[in-house]
């Protein structure tokens, strides 16, 4: 049967399927309202920047997460704060859900519209509005990526945090949510980088936060008074859409020095002390523990090359990068780091970059390339485009145990012994925070998404690993709540188990109801919108 006939045949048998999930309560995203909203959006933004064509909506329906595919009804590309405000205003008027979308890069399905509605793709707002090199800040739109901004700041002797994500991730989105970075030990995480921002609230009003909120210079400190800018960190887009953000930049030293302590023995008890030693002294810029899997990712150009390299490298790494105004200073800091590490972790030795270059048969550059990847624009995603993450937060001394527990939970789900998952496919990363006071553990499982069996096993393994981490007492972080809210009954359970969290969650939900009485902004919650409107009065 020819293609055309086959299609006709299938159509007649009604198996053409458009996977748009229909509204549950029948008030939001009604077809007649969508039509009106579409016309008004076209008027507000220009016809060119609004579409409800299925060829356009389909591209926003899926990502690498396990969240089921779902189309938005309309995709809008605002070009300004006013455009975003117009979108929110129209959405509220016609009760249409709005899903914010930065550059659309995430591993958790957060930009897949739960019930359709308007998808607000912010990539047109990709301008770097200002870089103040002397006073170390910049103002950017939500479509600006890390690689773009890093490139411009480095030219001015400054840098921004490098995230453990793709270099093409939106800076604004990342700072609002994950923002795991190898600089977190020294410079902080998330909110620590934000000076202020302009946001369109769910009801379409525009709010300015930070010193700019009353016309002051962007002098870095929070305020005035209560730290209002904090309400966006971890909100995952449920509390509005940021249209401009002023973030902190950090000095880039004239000279850098990298030393890589490595160990191939399973001496977990030495890793936390080694990390603490260098983190607490506060002379390193980047600082992390990771495993050889990442060496493959950083150094190789292809998956195959990466898989080949990984077994050649020792398993454990602590990676401090020191910097100095002079080479002498960078060198001296490096030496102190080495001494500090050896004092508490005598089984470590220091990697010889000449050997690395030999290992890679000269094809892979050594320290310079590694440093560039590690410091500026890490590309963590590989192997058919996906990976799953288990994560937790705890004091550094607990992380090895949490890791072991996660590994055990994972392997008991996907196999019967620890060798089932090769080093090529699983890797752990400890990121010290706040000068060694605690750390973030990331447990990455790289999967082949084209293999459904592999995917399913990995998903259940990841869930088991997360549960294990939580059982060991670790914290979760970066605005997990809106996700958990999406998971329904989990919310009530947590409120019962942790009453203090219950107070927090009630506060969040009430604030959400006040600011989004129509429940249109990244609709992950179900609440009584009539009650919400009353709360908002």
């Amino acid at each position, binding site marked *: 049967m020819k293609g055309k006939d086959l*299609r006709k045949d*299938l159509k007649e048998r009604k198996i*053409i*399927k458009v996977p748009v999930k229909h509204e549950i309560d029948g008030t939001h995203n009604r077809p007649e309202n969508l039509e009106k909203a579409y016309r008004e959006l076209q008027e507000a933004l220009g016809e060119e*920047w609004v579409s409800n064509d299925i060829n*356009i909506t389909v591209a926003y329906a899926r990502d690498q997460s396990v969240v089921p595919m779902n189309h938005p009804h309309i995709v809008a590309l605002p070009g300004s704060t006013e455009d975003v405000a117009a979108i929110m205003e129209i959405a509220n008027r016609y009760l249409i859900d709005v899903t914010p979308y930065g550059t659309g890069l995430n591993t958790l399905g957060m930009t897949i519209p739960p019930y359709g509605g308007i998808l607000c793709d912010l990539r047109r707002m990709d301008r770097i509005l200002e870089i103040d090199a002397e006073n170390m800040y910049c103002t950017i739109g939500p479509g600006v990526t890390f*690689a773009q901004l890093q490139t411009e700041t480095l030219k001015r002797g400054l840098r921004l945090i490098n995230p453990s994500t793709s270099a093409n991730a939106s800076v604004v989105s990342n700072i609002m949510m994950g923002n795991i970075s190898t600089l977190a030990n020294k410079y902080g995480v998330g909110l620590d980088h934000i000076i202020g921002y302009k946001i369109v609230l769910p009801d379409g009003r525009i709010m300015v936060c930070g010193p700019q909120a009353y016309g002051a210079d962007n002098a870095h400190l929070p305020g005035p008074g209560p730290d209002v800018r904090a309400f966006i960190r971890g909100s995952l887009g449920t509390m509005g859409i940021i249209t401009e953000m002023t973030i902190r930049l950090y000095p880039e030293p004239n000279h850098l020095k990298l030393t890589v302590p490595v160990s191939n023995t399973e001496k977990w008890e030495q890793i936390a002390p080694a990390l603490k030693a260098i983190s607490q002294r506060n002379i390193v810029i980047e600082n992390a523990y990771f495993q050889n899997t990442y060496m493959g990712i950083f150094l190789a150009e292809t998956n195959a090359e990466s898989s080949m390299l990984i077994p050649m490298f020792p398993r454990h790494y602590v990676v401090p990068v020191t910097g100095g105004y002079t080479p002498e200073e960078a060198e001296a800091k490096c030496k102190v780091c080495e001494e500090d590490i050896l004092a508490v972790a005598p089984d470590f030795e220091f990697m010889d970059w000449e050997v690395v270059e030999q290992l890679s048969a000269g094809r892979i550059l050594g320290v310079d390339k590694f440093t560039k990847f590690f410091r500026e624009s890490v590309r963590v995603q590989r192997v*058919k485009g996906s990976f799953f993450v288990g994560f937790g937060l705890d004091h550094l001394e607990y992380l090895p145990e949490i890791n072991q527990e996660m590994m055990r939970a994972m392997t008991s789900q996907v196999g019967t012994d620890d060798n089932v998952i090769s080093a090529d496919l699983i890797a752990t990363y400890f990121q010290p925070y706040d000068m060694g006071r605690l750390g973030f553990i990331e447990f990455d499982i790289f999967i082949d998404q084209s293999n459904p069996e592999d995917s399913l096993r990995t998903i259940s393994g990841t869930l088991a690993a997360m549960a294990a981490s939580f059982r060991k007492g670790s914290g979760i972080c970066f605005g997990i709540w809106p996700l958990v809210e999406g998971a329904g009954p989990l919310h009530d359970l947590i409120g019962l188990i942790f009453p203090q969290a219950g107070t927090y969650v009630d506060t969040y939900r009430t604030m959400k109801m006040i600011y989004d009485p129509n429940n249109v902004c990244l609709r992950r919650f179900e609440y009584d919108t009539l009650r919400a409107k009353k709360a908002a009065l």
Partner: protein
Amino acid sequence: MERGLTRKREKLTDYRDDYWVCGKCKMCQSINVQKFVSARFSANCPCGTRYRFESYYAAGMMEIARAITNLEFEPTEKTAEIIYSCNLCGLCQEMCFPLKGLHTTRIIQLMREKAVEEGWGPLPAHASVLESTTERDNPFGLERGFKGRAVRDLEVKDLTRERAENLLFVGCAYAAPGQGERLGALVRALRSVGLDFGVLGDAEPCCRSFNLALGDRDGFEENALENIALFHSTGASRIVTACPHCLQVLRDEYSRAMDLEVVHATEVLAEALERGDLEVRGDRKLKGAYHDPCFLGRWCEIYEAPRRLLSAVPGLELLEFERSLENSWCCGAGGGVKSGRPELSSWTADERLEEANAVGAEVVITACPHCTQQFEERGRLPVYDIYQVLV
């Protein structure tokens, strides 16, 4: 006609593992992040950057491929408009394949083949191009005979009658009226290095690169086997192409059915330069940026030869675009976009010319007649074909 000229014909569904696993990691939406020079010139995909909807980027086109093969919706005019907005410049695949292993550009090509087969592609504006290749064996609507006229006064061997080691495949673009100076420069350069070569004149067929780009594989293959027979009949041991598009077709598409080495003229000249056989003259100071044609660079991986040649030109300060080599931005002419989506095509060229300005170039130099013409038409900077600069 025998099908499967070079290999078993591929179907879009052969790549289902690719388009189903695309995780929207966005690597297809910028040049290699390690090579960024500025934020301004970091985008890689002309149609994605112009229209900004995800569907115009490779990641979105993967979703369209997935959805139409999964019978989620019927392809429409919009589907065609989107997939024919792609220049097939190959930069998305250049970014994606090494790490993610997806053949994004190939999938877009196969979507076009599916479109032609099912009748929803190409775009109406492409009809005249396809008609011209069918009727007159060139994509420009030129009457037959123009190829003969183009080489008539160049005193090169006619390989329909004479023998030479090398067949210079001129291509429709270099043979078109108005390109005489450039073709003449190439011939002089080749002659100056002592190359034994000849041409086919009016007997030279069209490589049908356009048909291939538009998804008309039947049209592309129509005369391919006869063409190969013709090339073999000349007795030449090697084909030297002037145009990168011809090079890609002859080298990659014809290779399994043809026992002839295919090289680009810049490769021949660069080798001669290495040997000391090519004397390059230049009499004026010039700052020129070399634009990597997509089909010469990414498709055929020829980056160094043109640069070696241009570096040898006295007085020429060779500049690099911020996006160069594997990361080069397309001129906007390829993939049928110039005829199908002229506004996008012009915008793409303007972007490149703005980049030329940004790096301080006084002229743009390239090694593809389509790129040359595309930039010339914008009229913002003088444009040179590489052969002109050499001679």
